[in-house]
C-alpha cells in the first residue's frame, strides 16, 4: 500500500538527471594528510547537508495544518449550505449532509467496542448501463497535458494501485471490454480477466502489450517513468488520470474516464448515482459521534509502523464518518510516515483502522497489540480495531458510498443504509 504516488507525472517531459557536477578535476595529490582532513570535513558537510535536506522532506513544521476545506469546521453547526448546481445533491460531505438534516439518532453509549470487521452487504458492481455504445473517436486531455485520441474501446486495460479505474469502467457498463486488470480490481465480475501487475505493484509492460489493448487507462499511483515511456512509445493510446485519492476527486475522475471511453452520458448518470449513494451513507452517520480519533495504520513486523496522514485519502474517510484523523492531529504533513512507538502513544487514538490482510499478516489482534506503543493508547486499551478489505478502503471510485456505509456500521453500530443502485 505505501507505494502510492510514486511518479508525479509532471506535465511535459522533464528528463531529469544528467546534472553531473564537473568539479574537482585538477586537484593533484598534493598533501595526503591535508586531503584526508579535507575529505573528512567534506564528509561531515555532506552528512550535515543530508540531514538538513532530509528532515524537511518528510515533514515541514506543523504550522500548515493541511489546507483542507472544512477540516477544522465544527461538525454540526455553522456548516454553510453552499448553493450547488441543480441536480447535484448537496450532501456529499458530512457538513452538508448534516446541514440538510441528515444524521441518525444514536446514543454514543451504544457504539461498538472491541475489534470489528467492516463488511459489505452488497459487494457487487452495478453497471449504470448495459454495454452502452461509445461515440468514438474522442480526443481527451490526459492528466499530463497530452492530447490523446481514442478511436477504439473494445480492448480496455484500466490499471492503478487501488483498482479505482477498473471499478469505474465496470460501473460504466464496459466491463466486457476489459482485457487486463490490476489486483484490487478483483470483484467476481473481473476475476477471470488476466492481471497485468507483477509482484510489488509494478506494471508488466510485456503482459500489457501481449493483450493487445486498444486503450490504456492509468495514473501516477502505479506508473514509473520507465513504464510510462515504454507504454507511450508503443503507439497505444494511453490516458492518465488524476492520481490523488480524495472524496472530492471522485466525480471528476468518473467523468474523465467516461469521456475518454466515449460514454459521457453514462458518466454523468454514474456520477449522480455515486453522489446519491455517498449522501445516503453519510446520512447514517450519528449526529453525535464524539469525534473519535482514528489512526489508520499499516504495520509490518514490530519495527515498521506506518501511520497515514493528510492527503492519503484515509484522512478524508475518517473525517467524513465524523472522526478525527490521528496522523493529521499529531502534525504529520505527508500521506504516510514510519512513526515511532511514542508518536502513536502521543497521538492517543480512540480506534485503529487497518486493512484486513495487514491484520492477518501480523498474526491477529494479540500480535498487533504486542507491538510497542499500540497497546498503550485508548484504542489499545479497548482493543478497538476496525479492519476492512484493503481493496475497498482507499479506492474512491463509484462504490465509495458503500465503503462509507460499511465504515459507519463498523464504527457506530448503525445498520448500513440501503444504497440506491439505479
Amino acid at each position, binding site marked *: 500500500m505505501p507505494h502510492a504516488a510514486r511518479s508525479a507525472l509532471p506535465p511535459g517531459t522533464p528528463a531529469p538527471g544528467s546534472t553531473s557536477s564537473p568539479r574537482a578535476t585538477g586537484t593533484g595529490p598534493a598533501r595526503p594528510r591535508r586531503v584526508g582532513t579535507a575529505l573528512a570535513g567534506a564528509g561531515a558537510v555532506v552528512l550535515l547537508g543530508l540531514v538538513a535536506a532530509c528532515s524537511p522532506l518528510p515533514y515541514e513544521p506543523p504550522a500548515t495544518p493541511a489546507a483542507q476545506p472544512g477540516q477544522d469546521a465544527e461538525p454540526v453547526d455553522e456548516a454553510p449550505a453552499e448553493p450547488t448546481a441543480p441536480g447535484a445533491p448537496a450532501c456529499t460531505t458530512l457538513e452538508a449532509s448534516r446541514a440538510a438534516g441528515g444524521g441518525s439518532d444514536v446514543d454514543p453509549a451504544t457504539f461498538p467496542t472491541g475489534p470489528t470487521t467492516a463488511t459489505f452487504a452488497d459487494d457487487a458492481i452495478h453497471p449504470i448501463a448495459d454495454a452502452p455504445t461509445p461515440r468514438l473517436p474522442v480526443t481527451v486531455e490526459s492528466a499530463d497535458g497530452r492530447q490523446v485520441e481514442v478511436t477504439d474501446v473494445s480492448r480496455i486495460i484500466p490499471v492503478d494501485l487501488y483498482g479505482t479505474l477498473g471499478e469505474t469502467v465496470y460501473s460504466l457498463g464496459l466491463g466486457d471490454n476489459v482485457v487486463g486488470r490490476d489486483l484490487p480490481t478483483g470483484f467476481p465480475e473481473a476475476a477471470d480477466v488476466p492481471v497485468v501487475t507483477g509482484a510489488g505493484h509494478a506494471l508488466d509492460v510485456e503482459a500489457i502489450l501481449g493483450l493487445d489493448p486498444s486503450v490504456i487507462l492509468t495514473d501516477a499511483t502505479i506508473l514509473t517513468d520507465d513504464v510510462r515511456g515504454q507504454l507511450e512509445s508503443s503507439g497505444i493510446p494511453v490516458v492518465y488520470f488524476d492520481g490523488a485519492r480524495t472524496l472530492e476527486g471522485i466525480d471528476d475522475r468518473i467523468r474523465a474516464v467516461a469521456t475518454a471511453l466515449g460514454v459521457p452520458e453514462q458518466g454523468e448518470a454514474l456520477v449522480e448515482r455515486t453522489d446519491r449513494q455517498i449522501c445516503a451513507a453519510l446520512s447514517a452517520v450519528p449526529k453525535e459521534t464524539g469525534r473519535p480519533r482514528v489512526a489508520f495504520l499499516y504495520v509490518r*513486523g514490530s519495527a515498521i509502523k506506518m501511520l497515514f496522514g493528510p492527503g492519503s485519502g484515509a484522512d478524508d474517510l475518517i473525517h467524513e464518518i465524523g472522526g478525527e484523523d490521528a496522523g493529521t492531529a499529531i502534525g504529520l504533513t505527508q500521506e504516510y510516515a514510519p512513526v515511532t512507538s511514542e508518536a502513536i502513544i502521543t497521538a492517543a487514538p480512540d480506534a485503529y483502522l487497518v486493512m484486513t490482510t495487514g491484520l492477518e499478516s501480523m498474526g491477529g489482534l494479540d500480535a498487533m497489540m504486542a507491538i510497542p506503543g499500540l497497546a498503550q493508547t485508548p484504542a489499545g486499551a479497548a482493543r478497538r480495531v476496525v479492519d476492512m478489505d484493503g481493496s475497498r478502503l482507499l479506492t474512491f471510485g463509484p462504490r465509495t458510498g458503500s465503503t462509507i456505509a460499511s465504515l459507519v456500521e463498523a464504527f457506530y453500530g448503525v445498520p448500513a443504509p440501503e444504497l440506491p443502485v439505479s
Partner: protein
Amino acid sequence: MSAPVTSPAGAPQDGSAPVPDAAPDEGDRSARVGPAVGRGRRRAARWLTVGLGVALAVLTVVSGMTGQVPVSPAEVLGSLAHHLGLDWGPMPSHPQGENALWVVRFPRVVLAIVVGAALACSGALMQGVFGNPLAEPGVIGVSSGAAVGACAVIVTAGALVPGTWVAAAAFLGGLVTTFVVYALARAGGRTEVVTLVLTGIAVNAFAGGMLAFFTFVADPAAREQIVFWQLGSLGGATWKSVSIVLPIAAVGVTGAMLVRRRMDLLALGERAAQHLGVDVERLRQLVIVLVALLVSAGVAFTGIIAFVGLVVPHLVRMVCGPSHRTLIPASVLGGAVVLLAADLLARNAVANVELPLGMITSLVGGPFFFYLLRRTRSRQGGWA
C-alpha cells in the same frame, strides 16, 4: 597489515594497527617503547574508560528523558524510584507516561546499549583475530550472513516466527560466515587487507543474492521484515528481545575480556604467541565463536547496523593505543555510547518519525572508513 607490523611498535597515534605497543609484562618490547609512552597511554586509557563511563551514564539519562511522550526528568527519576520500591519523586503526569517509559523507551535504551557494546566488541575481537584493521562484521559480510540465516527462518517459518528462532538462525548464519571468511581470507598464517576486503565483497554479494532470493519468494509480511533487517532499527525493542540479547552479549563480552591478554600475544605473530604458551588454533576458534555470538546479539532483533564495529575500536586505538587490555573494555563502553547516541537521533531527529538506525551509522561510518583509508595512506603508504 603487513606494513604496520614492521613499523616501530610504539609509533605514537598508530591508531589503525591492532598491534600492542607494549604489553608491560614483556620486557624486551617495553624496553624499546620507553616507559614514558607506556605510562602516558595507560593514563589515557584510564581517562578514556572513565570518560566513556560518564558519557554512557549521562546519555542513558538523556535518552530516558527524550521522546515524543512528554515526561519531565524529575518524573523519569520518580518513575524509576517507584519501580525500585521507593516512594520518592513525582510519577509521570501524561496518562501513558508510565507506559511510554517502561514499555517503549527503557527497553529501547537498554537494547541500544547492549547491541552497541556487542557490535563494537565483536569489531575489536575480529580485528585482533584477523590481525587486520578493516575487519568488521558489516564490512566482511558477517552481518549479512547473520541476516541470511534470520531471513531464511522468517521465510520458511512465516513472519510470525518466534524471536528466539530468528536469533538462533542469525547466530548460525554469523558463525558459518565468520568461519568461511576466515578460511577464505587466510593464507600462510596471514590475512592480507586486500584479500580480506575482497572476500568481504564476495561474501556480501552472495549474501545479497540470498537476501534478494528470500525477498522474492517471501509473502508481503515476511518481505517487509527482510527489508527491515537490512535497514537496521531498534523500533521494535521489547523487554523480551532484551532478555534474549542481553545474555548472549554478556557471554560474548565476558569471553572477550577473558581472552584479551592472549589476543595481545597473538598480535605479536603466531610463532611468538606459540612460544609464549598460547594455543593459537584454539584461541582463534574460541574468538570466532565469540565474534559470532556478539554479532548475532547485535543483529538478532535490530537488523544490520554497520560500521559501529569499525569506528569505535579505531577511535579507542587513536586515544590509548592498540593493547587489547584497554581496547576491549573501552570499545564495549564506546559502542554503547555511539549506538545510544545514534538511536537518540533516529527516534527524535524528525518529530514522530522513525529514521532507520542503520542509515545513520552508515552515513557516519562510511566517510570515517574513507578517512581511515586516506590517513593510513598518508602515514604508512596504505594497506597493501
